[in-house]
């Protein structure tokens, strides 16, 4: 029955994504933790289909199960009940090696705290996932420089994270997530630790990737500008999807932000 909801949603008339390929699909996703002998339900049945090339924003207060949801669709955690399909591959069926391959090649992760490896230069940070994927060092270097160029940090390839600003670090992190040409970018509040201006830069890069390269971007955020440019918005509350809406159906007020910028 749960499976039906997702497919129905995809086929429902008026959905602009109806003809597109589903890249991530969850079926009756439930997750519960034992915390101090109390069973906590983090997710209480989430069914969603995310389409290829989509830019989707996920919102929800802390403790809503947003992070758990992210871990599930990023193949970082396994659900208690239900299934996650990444391009119709059941994640639960994969071995540890295959999971590593999936994380390495198919999904790019962008974290709120950037999570760069502190002792590596920008270039090394970008080429590490390539090395894990078996790319030869020379090729990895060339590709790494290309990607750094893409995020506008070509000049700073030899800098360590500590020598860079938050925005620059986040851009390196984006470059790293792009290392193996992933199909999906999972962003966990990428602009939360940045000021207005650098936040906008990050958003611009993400949008460019989405529109030019067709990368699916799934973004947890509270940033209104991010909501403004996405295709779909999704609210999670108490471990369930509260609401899913297309961008055009939602009214977002950005006036004050525009004022700031000028």
């Amino acid at each position, binding site marked *: 029955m749960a499976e039906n909801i997702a497919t129905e949603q995809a086929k429902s008339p008026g959905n602009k994504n109806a003809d597109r390929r589903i890249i991530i699909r969850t079926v009756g996703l439930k997750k519960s933790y034992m915390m101090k002998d109390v069973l906590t339900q983090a997710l209480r049945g989430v069914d969603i289909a995310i389409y290829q090339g989509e830019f989707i924003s996920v919102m929800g207060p802390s403790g809503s199960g947003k992070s758990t949801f992210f871990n599930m669709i990023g193949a970082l955690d396994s659900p208690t009940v239900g299934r996650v399909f990444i*391009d119709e591959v059941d994640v639960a069926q994969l071995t540890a*090696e*295959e999971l590593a391959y999936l*994380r390495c090649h198919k999904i790019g992760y962008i974290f709120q705290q950037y999570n760069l490896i502190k*002792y590596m230069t920008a270039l090394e940070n970008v080429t590490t996932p390539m090395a*894990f*994927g078996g790319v030869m060092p020379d090729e990895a270097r060339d590709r790494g420089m290309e990607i750094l160029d893409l995020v506008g940090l070509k000049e700073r390839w030899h800098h360590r994270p500590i020598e860079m600003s938050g925005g620059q670090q986040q851009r390196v992190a984006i470059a790293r997530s792009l290392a193996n040409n992933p199909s999906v970018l999972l962003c966990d509040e990428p602009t939360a630790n940045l000021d207005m201006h650098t936040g906008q830069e990050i958003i611009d890069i993400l949008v460019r990737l989405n529109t030019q390269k067709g990368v699916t971007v799934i973004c947890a955020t509270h940033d209104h500008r991010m909501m403004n440019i996405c295709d779909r918005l999704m609210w999670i509350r108490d471990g369930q999807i509260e609401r899913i809406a297309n961008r055009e159906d939602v009214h977002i007020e950005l006036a004050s932000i525009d004022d700031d910028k000028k």
Partner: protein
Amino acid sequence: MKELNIDNQPWLSMSRTVKITADGIRYRLFRASVTVAVIVVAVAFLMNILSESLIKRSIAGNTRERIQKSLLNSVWASKLTSPGSPESIITETAALSPNDDLYKETMGFAKLDAQGMAEFQAIAKKTNYIFEFFDNLDYAKRRDLIHTSEGVDILNYLSEPENMKVFNLGLSRYKSIQFDLSQEELDALLAQLPKLEKTIAQILESRKEANTKIIHALREKLPNANNDAERLSMALPNADKEFGDFIRQTGFVFNKETVAPIVAEQAKRLQDTTRMKNSIKDRPVRQLIAQEANILPADVNDVMMWDFLDNEKFAKRYIEKMAESGQNVEGLTPELLVSLAKGRKEAEALERAQRLTMDAGKGFMGLGERLAWLLCVSMLVCGIGIANAMMMSVTERFTEIATLKCLGALDGFIMIMFVLESCFMGVVGGTIGAIIGALIGLFRMLSSFGVNFISAIPVMDVIMGMIVSIILGTLLAAIAAIIPSWKAARLAPMEAMRVE
């Protein structure tokens, strides 16, 4: 858009793994150096004990050799004048190899051919084993088994069937006693007892004859001396000349190249030493020392004399005083006196070394039980220290590990990374520790034994010990890192999402 076909993630090449690990250590140099310090201390302790025991053991062997050599004179002095006992002959013969001088000598005295001598030695070996066996027993057991018999009498005692029964009964009762000879061997040995006794009697007879010859010759040659012992001590300095030839004539195998010069030299030194000891009887000589030591002449003794004689200037003045008081100073030179004084010191050092190395070579790796135990504890403490440091390193790097796993790192890579990190520190700490430990051991040993044992230091052994210590330190670090690494490898990648 690209197809999603899931493959197996390849393993990262070792060189990349090493590079990432090395970069990580460089970034956390301080933390790493503290861990290295723990390893340094533990390995230094291990190496110190190891090198000390190695040096000690080597010095013990060296000391034994040198003491044996320094006793050569007195050994020959007693040998030339007394035939010895049956037991000493058996013990002596059991330890010989066919190339030894003493082997040929015994063969000559026993009037045996090579075949007979080999047989005699085989019997002597077994008999000697029996002597040792009973010597190591406590009184009660010994009395139980062989009553009060001693030496060759043990064999005579056991020859009685009645006594043999008692002996066997006793052996079967004392389970803890290990007697290596079978009943057949023992019976065969007892059957050969008359032959053994005959041979020994022959040896004793021949030796006595030789001794008598020597004593008579000495009495003829030196009629003025007080007794035979004095005559011998006067004759022995000539052992490398005509007296040596005479000794050889009597049947002793007195090696002209290896033994005679040493015996002669030692006899001469002994003579000189005695002469010097007697020299302080005269007042002018005593006064000289009393002046130097700032005491009354009456309190001067020969120990003080030797203390002062180790510089040539004083020795020269001393000889002048001796001549002044009418003593015979012929053949005495300052150099000789200094070398005599030094020789005395060396003998003292040897004696001290022998005392200090009494316990060498016992227990685990020659360390002694207590040290071995201490070593185990120190290794354990070090292991826990490393494990703790690695655990902290893992905890500190939760996010990093999780991020690496998000980027596609395999569990195995994370594990290898941490074990490698620990191994690096093990190698560095082990090397520093081994060098420090060896140096400390060296200095401690040199300061307690003195520099005249520097040639006895087993350099190769110490270097081998260092290599072993480094390997042990690395191994210890690797083992201690296994649990923390396993913990790191098992870390869920979603930790990376956690906001601190």
